């Protein structure tokens, strides 16, 4: 037993504690991160009697060290001797839960929540709950904030007297003097509601909810909106109107845009929580107002929810509600003054077509899509294009192709390379939907032009795009339309363009197959091995390594091998290196 419990002579506590006290923060941090190793060396008993008291006493340290300590202690149950001793971990965690730094405190609370589950019901009442009470009535706001996160983990497992005390503490903190504590309480209101009995939910929580939702600080009020979702989910339908709706209506018209934003942001959740009837009577007008809000932030948040909101409307009246109430607002948003609003709308608006069906889409939505495709802001156009697949299923993409093309061309030449990059990524999708003829006629030149873009990321994406196109349209198409152009660039005076040829070959060889690779690509690659620029030459070596597996063994031995051997004696060390690598990977030595 003594052996298993660590060895005094080998690991005197003083040496270990010295490590935890090292002057260098980094070393101290390392030691704390290996606290479990130290505990293991000491054995469970000395961990309990010596290590933990030391840790509790020396809690003043840099926040980074404290954070690591708070995290470690959450996994310490076995190291102190299992669940029956887990309460030994409470004193250091209690101190950590009172420090100023939020990250440390949050981590301490997280660990406390974790080990609360390992307490027996008796220990929970004897050790854990008193700690929660101490924190809840602490002098400085930090301990009271931490307490807010602990109520819901102990409530379900304690006796009814203690439950009553916990409810009382929670009530007190909801009305705390400092807004920081009220915010903490408000953010845990939903969680706490879930563990409460329905009667107490109605008698206690609703009044707290109402009070927090009309707090003088908007930062508190907006957290109450979050809680609203959980509370509404828990209450029976018939109570919602009297207990929740007055507060929710008030929040949707709050004078602070932050609160209204929160309502807009949580709209789908709220919609599900209150059910179809209230949605029809209350949420539809509220949603209209949010879409027309005077603050762009709120409109954008609401615009983001348009599709989800419409989808979740009760089926019997869905179409009528959308057509008469939602669509008019959506139409206005298309020409909003704020680009974030338009762009939020553009990212979801296409989704409406599946809900409204073919005829309505053509009559009402199509003009909106077309308007957005011509929007001055590239992000709006991009969002429309990236969601084309939704419309394709309903009305087919041809309806749009007239407007689509100019939009794509313009984005393809946008001054911002990130915009160009984004449109390239949609090319394979567009190609699939528009078909090979349309593609060859209108888009192929664009795809080739990207290969000589002056930004590397674009050239790289263009290469990858070609590969995907070949996968879609087949080797024969590649041979006729792409390969000649790509190989033509091998004679370009700009070495960057010559390298692009090699990169394209790397990407295309597999999709094009052995025949094209051997007969058309390989000769070009081999010829480039005498290029003046070393970067081109070592990329030849890399390309040969890449396309080697596609070639037959005859070509490898008679054509590739001599060239690589020659490159392996190149004057440039990088060329040598990659040539040798290729030789060994292709097993040509």
């Amino acid at each position: 037993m003594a052996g298993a419990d660590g060895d005094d002579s080998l690991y005197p506590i003083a040496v270990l504690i010295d490590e935890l006290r090292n002057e260098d923060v980094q070393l101290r941090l390392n030691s704390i991160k290996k606290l479990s190793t130290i505990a293991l060396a000491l054995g469970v008993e000395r961990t309990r009697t010596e290590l933990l008291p030391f840790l509790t006493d020396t809690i003043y340290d840099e926040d980074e060290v404290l954070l690591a300590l708070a995290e470690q202690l959450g996994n310490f149950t076995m190291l102190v001797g299992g669940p029956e001793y887990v309460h030994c971990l409470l004193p250091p965690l209690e101190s950590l839960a009172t420090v100023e730094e939020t990250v440390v405190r949050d981590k301490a609370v997280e660990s406390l929540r974790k080990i609360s589950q390992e307490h027996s019901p008796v220990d929970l009442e004897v050790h854990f709950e008193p700690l929660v009470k101490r924190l809840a009535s602490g002098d400085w706001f930090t301990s009271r904030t931490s307490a807010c996160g602990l109520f819901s983990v102990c409530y379900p497992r304690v006796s009814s007297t203690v439950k009553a005390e916990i409810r009382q503490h929670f009530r007190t903190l909801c009305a705390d003097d400092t807004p920081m504590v009220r915010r903490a309480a408000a953010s845990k209101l939903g969680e706490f509601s879930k563990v409460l009995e329905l009667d107490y939910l109605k008698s206690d929580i609703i009044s707290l909810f109402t009070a927090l939702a009309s707090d003088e600080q908007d930062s508190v009020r907006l957290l109450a909106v979050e809680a609203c979702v959980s509370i509404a989910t828990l209450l029976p339908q018939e109570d919602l109107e009297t207990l929740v709706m007055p507060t929710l209506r008030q929040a949707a018209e709050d004078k602070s845009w932050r609160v209204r934003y929160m309502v807009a942001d949580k709209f789908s959740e709220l919609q599900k929580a209150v059910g179809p009837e209230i949605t029809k009577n209350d949420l539809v007008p509220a949603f209209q107002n949010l879409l027309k809000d005077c603050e762009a932030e709120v409109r954008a948040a609401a615009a983001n929810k348009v599709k989800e909101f419409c989808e979740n409307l009760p089926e019997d009246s869905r179409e009528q509600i959308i057509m008469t109430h939602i669509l008019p607002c959506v139409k206005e948003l298309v020409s909003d003054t704020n680009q974030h609003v338009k762009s939020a709308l553009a990212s979801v608006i296409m989704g409406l077509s599946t809900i409204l069906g073919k005829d309505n889409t053509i009559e009402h939505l199509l003009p909106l899509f077309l308007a957005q495709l011509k929007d001055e802001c590239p992000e709006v156009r991009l969002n429309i294009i990236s969601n084309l697949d939704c419309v394709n299923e309903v009305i087919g993409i041809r309806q749009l192709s007239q407007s689509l093309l100019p939009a794509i061309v313009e984005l393809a030449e946008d001054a911002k390379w990130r915009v160009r990059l984004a449109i390239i990524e949609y090319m394979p999708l567009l190609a699939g939907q528009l078909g090979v003829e349309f593609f060859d006629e209108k888009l192929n030149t664009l795809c080739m032009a990207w290969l000589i873009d002056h930004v590397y990321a674009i050239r790289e994406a263009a290469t990858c795009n070609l590969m995907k196109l070949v996968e879609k349209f087949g080797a024969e198409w590649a041979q006729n339309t792409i390969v000649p152009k790509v190989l033509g660039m091998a004679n370009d005076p700009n070495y960057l363009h010559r390298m692009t040829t090699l990169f394209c070959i790397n990407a295309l060889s597999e999709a094009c197959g052995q025949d094209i690779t051997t007969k058309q690509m390989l000769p070009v690659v081999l010829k480039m091995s005498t290029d003046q620029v070393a970067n081109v030459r070592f990329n030849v070596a890399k390309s040969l390594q890449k396309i080697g597996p596609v070639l037959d063994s005859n070509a490898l031995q008679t054509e590739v091998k001599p060239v690589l051997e020659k490159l392996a004696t190149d004057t440039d060390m990088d060329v040598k290196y990659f040539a040798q690598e290729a030789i060994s990977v292709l097993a040509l030595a």
Partner: protein
Amino acid sequence: MSSAATTSPSVDKVDGFSRKSVRKAKQKRSQSSSQFRSQGKPIELTPLPLLKDVPAPEQPELFLKKLQQCCTVFDFMDTLSDLKMKEYKRSTLNELVDYVTVSRGYLTEQAYPDVVKMVSHNIFRTLPPSDSNEFDPEEDEPTLEASWPHLQLVYEFFIRFLESQEFQPSIAKKYIDQKFVLQLLELFDSEDPRERDYLKTVLHRIYGKFLGLRAFIRKQINNIFLRFVYETEHFNGVAELLEILGSIINGFALPLKAEHKQFLVKVLIPLHTVRSLSLFHAQLAYCIVQFLEKDPTLTEPVIRGLLKFWPKTCSQKEVMFLGELEEILDVIEPTQFVKIQEPLFKQISRCVSSPHFQVAERALYYWNNEYIMSLIEENSSVILPIMFASLYRISKEHWNPAIVALVYNVLKAFMEMNSTLFDELTATYKSDRQREKKKEKEREELWKKLEDLELKRGLRSDGIIPT
């Protein structure tokens, strides 16, 4: 006062922010307002006669009527609506400003609630969202308040009202209450520097005149700062609030109350951790030094606090910390200096050996400060051993020749101060380094043993530790 005269200086002030604005000028809308807009309907105000045109006895009543009219708030985001009425309100406000400045006997008791009501209606509003998600006050141009043509006059009026000789705080306190102050403090988050400037004056006057609100104001500023440090890292008016606090601290009675000390240690010191420190560091350092001049025994907790929050990766902040520390050392008492010299000079020694030359340079400048030099000299037997190793190493290794030159001067100064100790340290430098290396090796071995043990235990019991 004419409106042209009042607007031109503030325009200049805005230009102080235009450093980056040139670059962004084209794409940026620079105005915003979050007044809840009254939709559609045009606003009609019935023009009233000028105050100076009616007999004196009728003036107070007309004054109230005008206050009433000025409660109407206009939408300035719509530049075309209600132009006539906007102009009318502007001239009325101008008239009111003049009236409270010169007239005597206008401040009847009934006027107080109406004045506060008019001011509240105009200035209290939810501030609009920031233009960019991550508003960086150093980089981005501030969004200016669109309704400033009216707002400025309302602030101007309110300040004259508070400063008027007839103003009686005992009557006003019924209306300028905690709720009023709380809303006022929230406005300090305004992005518009012109507005924050007015707010600063307003809050200062209120703090000066309403003794009953002082504790409340301090507590709320506390809350704003704590939220700023630990929750949002975003609040535009920190510098302005600190400026007010600077003069508040100045007026604290001795001995300092526990509340004030707590504010120093738990709020002002943590403010140093915020990313945007550079925007309010001067004001913050001023507050700190004020505290230390009041009560020198606070030096130790303050310096320990700064050392705890010493920047690890941001060199600019490190330079600011060193600057602040020098300000503190300038006023430090020798008895306090002795208490913190060890941890302090361990940090300074790290700064001196920073590869960032501005940090090293800033720290080495301490040796140009006569008072600090005298303190170092008195305690050279403690400080020299702490500093010696880094100085010796830098004199051989630092990449920047200017730093090496500065270090030579410092070494020379030490040599003159205490040549015996200096020679001793030079002689033992090598053996000391070897001892350090040996200790390092021992540490490594200890950890290796511990890890072996962990591995063994892990294998023997499948990860479950035997009890």
